[in-house]
């Protein structure tokens, strides 16, 4: 059957965007749709992200722009999916492009219309209702597409038929089309990916928390309040009276972990976002008191436990283990009534503001659509998947990623997205590159030795620039500058017309340099560079002058000085342009083979996915058999026997002709870089050499052996994995399990929470109870961290009579003949006589990680798990190109997350593999060997190990250089240069900065 080489991605949050980029980069045409006017999803609304407190939009926005510019991604905002018909490989998806009443091909997002709209005070969806927008609006300044949308529910033309012309008059491009209609389109696609996301739980029916009070906000509203681009410009204040709050309460588990049927699950992210919001608030103002009312603090993720600790110790946040039952008003303030679980007392405390840490829920609209298409949902409306296929729905060819499949954080979402993209890539691998476009460019004009002939295009940007800066005067001034052979003003340089003019003038005036004076290069430089390239001019002969963001918009009342500044800013750019040189974006061929280190479930899954995409794989396993740690697990929390999954996977690996398995083997050395690596493999005393283009590190982990903890002897005191082995044979009246043994410790390496041990203990407790309900099972815990839908297991265990007793670090249990533990809740020492004690110990990293890391030049975290390129957005990449990681090598996680990461790593690795080449960075360091004395300062400064001294001279590996220029600055002889930012080019700007 013919497979179609295009994919529909539904939902433009970070997950949908990541999947689209991965798919488009691996040879597929992508339609990315979102029912909202802009892509970006919930992440665009966040102020910061945990646990690094990175600015959320700063890290997401480049992805938005990248998606919008990608020649093989159609970003369709304000578009809904209606139906999907067909079969895997060949679907017809019907979509509805809702009318914005603005022609998106004409609108340039200048925002002039918005300013003239008379309908004010509409609650902004982007600001979660605490900010306002007009009836014609762009949701946020970095929106993609950056186009206006008319909200017909509020626009006077549509509501009362008034002939209001506010926006139409303001729009000098005539982009507003009130007679526009919705447009239904049929898309032929090979696969559909649902990245539809979840939404914050709406607490309006939880009246006990006074959700209608202006100083009771949801956590998402509070994000908007904290955010610099939010309604208060990032000023945290009470919406009731504008006062700065001095006491803020966070109430956890609002709309999660409640007996109400549809919100029984844990939302998995709220504990950590509450700590993040509390920390940021403290950074705004140290004298705010913050209390977080929580039941169990669930820091289940890489670096989260350490983050929680920082919140407590460095920022002095009060964590109160409690159940908050009510928030009521008293004397203009808010009182939180709660049951203190440590002291077993009902208490009340007054606050200035209360934040409801609401959970994630599934939007009804999406659920209905998914059901209509035949996708199975669970009782909470999440897409149902099975343990070993975490991104595949029950409908072949329809995939899922992110929070539509269950609550999860950003990195897990991104991993699933890359995983889904990888799976789709394998499904449609025959159709790769069948529907993608590649721009054909004319041959490049040789400008060597030519006197610069500079063309300057100065943009009015409607009135955005022209309303402040005297643009014609700037043009006249520019004409007087040396080497400028053409200068003109344009209404909108970025429009098709504007670009056509640049194209024409390059030919007409034989221009060999182009300067555009308009907005910011960060968004528009690639556009004009592409125009230059289309006209046969090397794109690096283009230079930008920012006279909008950096001039007209910030000097609105100083027209003369703004004009003077604009002249000088253009002059600086002309000065640099004069010295610009053409650059090559070199291509590096990629050896289309992969190396996977580690034969556990993660490594095998990655190898299978790569092989399914048609790429040969060497799978290297240190031990004598495949299977890894999962061999020792005898049951999964839900359903299937893991041994069936494992055996099935091993069989597939062994039968796959493209996978070459090396058992009892290890990698002893690695050389090369992305596209062309060589490794030596020591196998049965023999050394083999293999060549490959990419590598996946799936080195796995092990269970921590708790020697010295609680009298561990492997007989009466055992670990959870040891229990797995004997669980179907044990005869015991009483079993005690102790959590956090050897994890969450004070000092590295095991300061982390191992994420899976609570679920593991609860699962095994249920198994014991199911086998013999009379067996008493006690679980001694610090926090029960059964995150996500594992929460249901916790409930089930309690229903089955498993007894949970909390202990603290100050009073740890004592294990002798008896187990003694102090139960705070009843205020008594409890003495249990167990037949068996089971210690829940953490996953620890493979001891080879250090050696493997050194060979591939990739870093380890303090825990000795590998450190990924970016904790949020690049969870399976390393900063070193061509090397990826997955599974326990990255950190402790359950099987489904390991498998999702394995697919993600395989998917990411497939990008260079399928392209067969990688594009090298053009703006890199280069060495003048005449001047280089081989001192090696540059080598020391390079954070990417791209510079080395060879034969007494510095050498730059273009494949590894990221072009920061730090080495150039360090070079004492001037031998190092950063292309496109050369010393003389920057000095020219310095010299022309001010006209005297």
């Amino acid at each position: 059957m013919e497979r179609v080489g295009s994919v529909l991605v539904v939902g433009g949050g970070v997950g949908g965007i990541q999947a689209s980029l991965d798919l488009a980069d691996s040879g597929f045409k992508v339609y990315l749709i979102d029912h909202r006017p802009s892509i970006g999803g919930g992440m665009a609304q966040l102020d910061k992200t945990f646990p690094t407190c990175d600015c959320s939009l700063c890290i997401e926005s480049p992805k938005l722009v990248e998606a919008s510019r990608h020649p093989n991604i159609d970003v369709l905002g304000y578009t809904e999916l209606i139906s999907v018909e067909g079969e895997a490989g060949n679907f017809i998806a019907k979509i509805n492009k809702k009318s914005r009443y603005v022609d998106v091909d004409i609108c340039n997002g200048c925002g002039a219309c918005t300013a003239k709209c008379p309908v004010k005070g509409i609650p902004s969806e982007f600001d979660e209702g605490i900010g306002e927008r007009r009836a014609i609006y762009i949701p946020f300044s970095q929106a993609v597409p950056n186009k206006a949308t008319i909200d017909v529910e509020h626009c006077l033309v549509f509501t009362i038929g008034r002939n209001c012309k506010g926006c139409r008059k303001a729009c000098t491009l005539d982009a507003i089309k009130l007679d526009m209609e919705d447009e239904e389109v049929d898309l032929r696609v090979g696969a559909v990916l649902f990245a539809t996301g979840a939404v914050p739980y709406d607490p309006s029916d939880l009246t006990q928390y006074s959700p209608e009070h202006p100083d009771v906000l949801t956590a998402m509203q509070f994000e908007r309040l904290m955010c610099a681009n939010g309604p208060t410009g990032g000023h945290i204040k009470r919406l009731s009276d504008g006062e700065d709050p001095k006491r803020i309460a966070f109430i956890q588990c609002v709309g999660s972990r409640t007996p109400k049927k549809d919100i029984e699950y844990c939302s998995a992210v709220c504990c950590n976002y509450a700590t993040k919001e509390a920390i940021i608030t403290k950074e705004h103002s140290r004298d705010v008191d913050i209390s977080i009312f929580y039941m169990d603090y669930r820091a289940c993720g890489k670096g989260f436990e350490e983050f929680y600790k920082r919140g407590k110790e460095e920022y002095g946040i009060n964590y109160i283990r409690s159940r908050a039952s009510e928030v009521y008003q008293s004397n203009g303030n808010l009182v939180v009534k709660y049951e203190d679980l440590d002291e077993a007392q009902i208490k009340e405390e007054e606050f200035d503001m209360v934040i409801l840490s609401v959970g994630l829920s599934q939007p009804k609209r999406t659920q209905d659509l998914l059901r209509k298409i035949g996708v199975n949902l669970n009782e909470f409306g999440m897409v149902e998947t099975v343990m070993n296929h975490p991104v595949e729905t029950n409908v072949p060819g329809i995939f899922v990623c992110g929070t539509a499949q269950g609550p999860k954080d950003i990195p897990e979402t991104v991993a699933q997205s890359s995983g889904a993209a990888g799976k789709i890539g394998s499904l449609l691998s025959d159709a790769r590159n069948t529907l993608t476009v590649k721009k054909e460019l004319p041959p490049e004009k040789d400008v060597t030795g030519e006197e610069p002939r500079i063309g300057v295009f100065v943009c009015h940007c409607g009135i955005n620039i022209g309303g402040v800066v005297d643009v014609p005067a700037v043009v006249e001034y520019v004409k007087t500058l040396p080497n400028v052979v053409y200068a003109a003003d344009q209404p909108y340089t970025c429009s098709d017309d504007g670009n056509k003019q640049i194209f024409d003038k390059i030919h007409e005036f034989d221009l060999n340099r182009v300067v555009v004076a308009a907005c910011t290069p960060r968004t528009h430089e690639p556009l004009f560079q592409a125009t230059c390239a289309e006209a046969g001019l090397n794109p690096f002969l283009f230079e930008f002058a920012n006279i909008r963001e950096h001039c007209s918009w910030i000097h609105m009342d100083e027209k003369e000085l703004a004009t003077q500044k604009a002249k000088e800013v253009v002059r600086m750019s002309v000065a640099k342009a004069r010295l610009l040189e053409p650059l090559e974006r070199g291509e590096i061929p990629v050896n289309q083979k992969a190396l996977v280190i580690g034969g556990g479930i993660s490594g095998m899954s990655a190898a299978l996915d790569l092989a399914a995409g048609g790429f040969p794989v060497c799978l290297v396993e240190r031990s004598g058999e495949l299977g890894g740690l999962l061999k020792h697990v005898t049951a999964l929390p839900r359903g299937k026997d893991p041994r069936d999954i494992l055996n099935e996977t091993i069989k597939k690996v062994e039968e796959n002709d493209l996978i070459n398995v090396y058992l009892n083997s290890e990698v002893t050395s690695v050389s090369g870089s992305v596209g062309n690596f060589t490794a030596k493999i020591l196998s049965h005393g023999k050394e083999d050499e293999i060549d490959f283009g990419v590598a996946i590190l799936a080195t796995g982990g092990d269970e921590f052996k708790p020697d010295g903890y609680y009298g561990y002897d492997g007989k009466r005191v055992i670990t959870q994995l040891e229990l797995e082995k004997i669980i179907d044979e044990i005869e015991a009246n009483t079993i005690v399990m102790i959590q956090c043994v050897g994890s969450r410790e004070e000092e590295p390496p095991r300061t982390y929470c191992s994420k899976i041990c609570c679920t593991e203990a609860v699962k095994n407790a249920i198994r014991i109870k199911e086998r013999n309900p009379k067996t008493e099972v006690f679980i001694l815990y610090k926090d029960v961290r059964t995150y996500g839908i594992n929460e249901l297991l916790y409930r089930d265990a309690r229903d089955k009579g498993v007894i949970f007793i909390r202990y603290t670090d100050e009073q740890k249990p004592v294990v002798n003949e008896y187990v003694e533990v102090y139960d705070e809740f009843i205020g008594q020492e409890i003495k249990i006589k167990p037949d068996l004690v089971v210690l829940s110990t953490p996953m620890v990293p493979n001891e080879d990680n250090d050696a493997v890391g050194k060979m591939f030049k990739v870093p380890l975290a303090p825990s000795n798990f590998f450190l990924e390129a970016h904790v949020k957005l690049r969870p399976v990449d390393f900063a070193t190109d061509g090397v990826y990681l997955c599974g326990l090598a990255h950190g402790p996680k359950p099987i489904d997350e390991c498998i999702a990461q394995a697919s993600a790593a395989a998917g990411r690795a497939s990008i260079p593999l399928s392209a067969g080449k990688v594009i090298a960075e053009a703006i890199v360091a280069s060495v003048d060997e005449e001047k280089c004395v081989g001192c090696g300062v540059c080598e020391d400064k390079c954070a990417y190990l791209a510079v080395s001294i060879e034969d007494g001279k510095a050498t730059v590996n273009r494949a590894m250089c990221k072009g920061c220029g730090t080495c150039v600055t360090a070079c004492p002889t001037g031998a190092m240069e950063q292309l496109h930012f050369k010393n003389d080019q920057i000095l020219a700007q310095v010299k022309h900065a001010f006209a005297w």
Partner: protein
Amino acid sequence: MEEEWIPKITLFCCNWCSYAGSDDAGVGRKQQPPTTRTIRVMCSGRTDPAFVLAALLEGSDAVLFTGCHIGDCHYISGNYKAKKKFEMLKEVVDELGLEDERLQLQWISASEGSEFAAYINKVTEEIEAIGPSPLRQEWMK
């Protein structure tokens, strides 16, 4: 001529954070005095001491180093290196007999448009208070 003097401030911005923060100030229409001229570099680690000295000798009344907050550097650690250079230059500027305000370092993230504008306003006031660079006056003689 003297009455018309307004500070001339050369501003080095890194592509990923402070330049974007400056853009954000523009998008938010955060008004600032027209005293700065921005030079974009990919990383604050590229801000060469030679550029800074050239700017001062060319008559800038102040030079500002800006970049990503420590820990946020797009290139892992370029801003640490910028900070080191800045500290070294501080001594040079001191030797030249220039006031402290004439060489400054500020970390600005891509979303800190308001902070960016506030900072430019503050620096401008500081330079207005101390007047034109003596180096510039020296040069003009």
